[in-house]
């Protein structure tokens, strides 16, 4: 096909592109994925004391942590979805919630007898927590992969990592509805590990799955 014919063919169909088409597409992929994750969380069971927990501080500390990470990673994903997009400072900004939660964790240690430290850190569910966060992020990650099919990332590993991290952090946010753990150090370790796993998977798969 010569280039002139190609242009003629391409110009036959030029639907208007809404102003925030890219954001909408990424949002749609994430929301559809998150709905599936929500169904899974429902199947695992909401924490029985959810209503009471929402009036306490620890629930909101956990959400502040996971949601702020999710926002940073989503913003980075949106930028990396454009061919000429860098990451801005978004990925680096994620150090702020991590340090913040670490600070709260140190305060926690100071108020807990040394003998109870290990029990607090491991909670009742350390063996499954990271795995659950990782698993719950997968539907959201899949949604983002769908979004990316019409986008144009040029730094594939980085874009994959940002998408994986966004999926992990939103997955963790929804996992908070199930998980009754209250310790900041618990969240800092096991939640973060699950999210990092999702980010690593994204970095690994990005160069293969995000090509266009």
């Amino acid at each position: 096909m010569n280039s002139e014919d190609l242009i003629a063919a391409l110009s036959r169909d030029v639907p208007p592109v809404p102003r925030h088409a890219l954001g909408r597409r990424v949002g749609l992929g994430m929301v559809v994925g998150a709905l599936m994750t929500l169904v899974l969380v429902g199947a695992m069971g909401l924490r029985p004391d959810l209503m009471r927990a929402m009036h306490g501080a620890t629930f909101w500390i956990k959400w502040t942590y996971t949601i702020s990470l999710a926002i940073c990673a989503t913003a980075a994903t949106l930028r990396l979805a454009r061919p000429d997009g860098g990451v801005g400072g978004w990925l680096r900004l994620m150090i702020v919630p991590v340090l913040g939660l670490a600070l709260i964790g140190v305060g926690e240690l100071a108020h807990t007898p040394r003998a109870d430290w290990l029990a607090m850190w491991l909670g009742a569910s350390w063996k499954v927590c990271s795995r659950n966060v990782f698993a719950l992020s997968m539907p959201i990650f899949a949604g983002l992969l769908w979004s990316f099919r019409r986008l144009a990332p040029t730094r594939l590993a980085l874009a994959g990592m940002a998408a994986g991290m966004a999926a992990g952090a939103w997955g963790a946010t929804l996992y908070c509805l199930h998980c009754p753990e209250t310790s900041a150090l618990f969240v800092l370790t096991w939640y973060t590990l699950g999210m990092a796993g999702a980010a690593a998977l994204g970095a690994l798969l990005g160069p293969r799955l995000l090509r266009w």
Partner: protein
Amino acid sequence: MQHEDDPLRALMLAGLAGDSVAHAALLRALLPALRRFFRRRLGGRDDDVEDLVQETLMAVHQRRATYDPARPFGAWLYAIARYKLIDRYRRSGRTTSLDDLDELADDFAFAEASDARADLDRLFEKIPQKQAAVLRATRIEGLNTAEAAERLGIGESDVKVSAHRGLRALAARVRDSLR
């Protein structure tokens, strides 16, 4: 906006708004610039050049939603072209240092963008003055129909008709210049 003087950007924005004439004019205006870009880097393998030009045009068309109007058009375009070039190297398994390639491409990107701009300035000279003035006012400076009508001292419907004819004329000139 700092990039309002870019005629390619104006065509891109019109295309994003659903104007297929402007979209076609844009793709045609990109042909020579993209051919130069790839030819310089592929050293005379003309089939490959045209392949990459077409792949880039298709990406510009299919992935146009990824263009951010607040950013320069040239940066977006050459990021796509550069990606397609690197992807081609990867696919063919050629061992080229991608770092070098990036650097090379950056060196040329600016020149390419200014070339493309000059190309469009020349095209504007070839269409009737009124149409060129209307296009500059509405598509490049971003005035709305009423503002452009007032600035140029003509009726609003005249502005609309002139803009439409102007884009058509531009597209025709681009076609001619490639023949």
